[in-house]
């Protein structure tokens, strides 16, 4: 196939320019990748904190344990609920002693009320969902009080929203810069071959024939640049991760493949755009 042969001969004829294009694509995507990793790790950390969102429904005195157990199993069936656990007076005391260490002797039996401790499913840990579940619990006749750290959840949710919006805005800005830089690099490669393009057209090459090797070249450069960016990001997280006090996470296989596919698409469409613009001009 002449287009594939032309593509590889373009790599062979201008190895420096090809390497420069791939490196530029790689470093542009590396910046996006690093930013993506920071966002991913912040999200992961927030999810860990969110897992601690808990609703505790304190049960009125003298409520039979069987009734509480039945209510707990009912609550566990709510669509928002991940788990609903019955905590008896004895278990509550034991937990308080465990959590408060040196003050453990202060507590005596029968001092703490029994409760149903509820953990919510991911996606239902926002203030609205928490309130909704809390209100249903409050409506139960044997529930004395419901606690869920209202202020803390609201702040956590605000932080999560800010992180999400900042992540999308900065991510788009990084991606736009990457596309511009990669576009300029590809344009350079097209301009370097403008003489060849004009000769091709003079001898009767169709625009499709002229475009094809550039598209293949852009695609291959994008894939190689994307793969190199992925390796660089992995190396960076390995190096930096050693100095951090928490466990960092890396992209899973799907996100890694999406990253490489993005590189390929940027290479492909960047080339299509640059060569198309050039063909319209000459």
């Amino acid at each position, binding site marked *: 196939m002449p287009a594939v042969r032309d593509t590889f001969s373009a790599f062979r004829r201008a190895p420096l320019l090809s390497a420069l294009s791939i490196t530029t694509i790689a470093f542009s995507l590396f910046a996006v990748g690093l930013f993506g990793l920071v966002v991913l790790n912040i999200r992961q950390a927030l999810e860990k904190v969110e897992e601690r969102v808990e609703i505790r429904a304190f049960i009125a005195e003298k409520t039979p344990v069987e009734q509480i157990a039945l209510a707990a199993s009912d609550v566990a069936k709510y669509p928002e609920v991940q788990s609903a656990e019955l905590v008896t007076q004895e278990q509550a005391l034991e937990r308080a002693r465990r959590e408060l260490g040196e003050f453990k002797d202060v507590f005596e039996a029968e001092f703490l009320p029994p409760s149903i401790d509820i953990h919510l499913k991911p996606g239902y840990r926002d203030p609205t969902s928490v309130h909704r579940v809390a209100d249903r619990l409050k409506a139960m006749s044997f529930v004395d009080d419901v606690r869920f750290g209202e202020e803390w959840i609201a702040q956590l949710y605000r932080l999560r929203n800010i992180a999400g919006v900042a992540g999308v805005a900065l991510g788009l800005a990084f991606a736009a810069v990457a596309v511009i830089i990669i576009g300029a690099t590809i344009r350079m490669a097209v301009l370097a071959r403008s*003489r060849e393009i004009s*000769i*091709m*057209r*003079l*001898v*009767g090459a169709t*625009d499709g*024939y002229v475009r094809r090797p550039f598209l293949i070249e852009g695609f291959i450069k994008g894939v190689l640049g994307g793969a190199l960016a992925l390796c660089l990001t992995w190396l960076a997280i390995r190096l930096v991760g050693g100095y951090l006090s928490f466990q960092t996470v890396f992209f899973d296989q799907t996100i890694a493949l999406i990253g490489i596919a993005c590189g390929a698409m940027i290479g492909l469409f960047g080339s299509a755009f640059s060569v198309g613009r050039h063909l319209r001009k000459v």
Partner: protein
Amino acid sequence: MIRFTKVTKEYPRLGAALSNASFSVAKGEFVFLTGPSGAGKSTILKLIYMEERPTDGEVRVGGMSSVTIRPRDIPQLRRRLGIVFQDFRLLEDRTAEANVAFALEVTGAPRSAIGNKVSRVLTQVGLASKASSYPRELSGGEQQRVAIARALVNDPLLLVADEPTGNLDDRATRGVFQLLREINASGTAVLMATHNLDLIRRSDYRTIELNRGQIVFDSAEAAKAALERFAD
């Protein structure tokens, strides 16, 4: 083969490069296009291979009209023409053979046919022994012969040459001109833009002279007028 009907070509800032030009070139004819720099010779050639479209009038080449041709049909037109330039326009990183083969590859010709055709035209231009040479290893005259071979490889109806001897010494000029004559003798029409009055004087081909975008002399028209006067 070629017909210009009241063709005007204007450029936004430069003004008219060609004004109201009308002429025809028949199949198998050899025509010189001459005149000072900026007279409109290259504009006529560009209008023929449709790199430019007329501002007014019509250019017809091999049955295709500048008025109705679609951009996607222009490559088909160019495959029926051979185009040669003063600066050769060879790809420096390809051998003579590859430069010629290139013109066939872009037309989608089968690989099996390319080799034979390339060696045939390289032999025709006298460069069979230099097929593997790169342009930098060839003299100016030889490079122009490669360019002519590339123009010939698609068996064109018309060879358009824009100052093909402009960069060559006398000996190479004579050689290239002789080659163009042979090509014409085998049936291909040749339209050659040139400053070289010596070449024009030494041959009896039709000459169209341009000045400031206007045809000021056409030897075919002059001969026709003389004949008419003689008949009267």
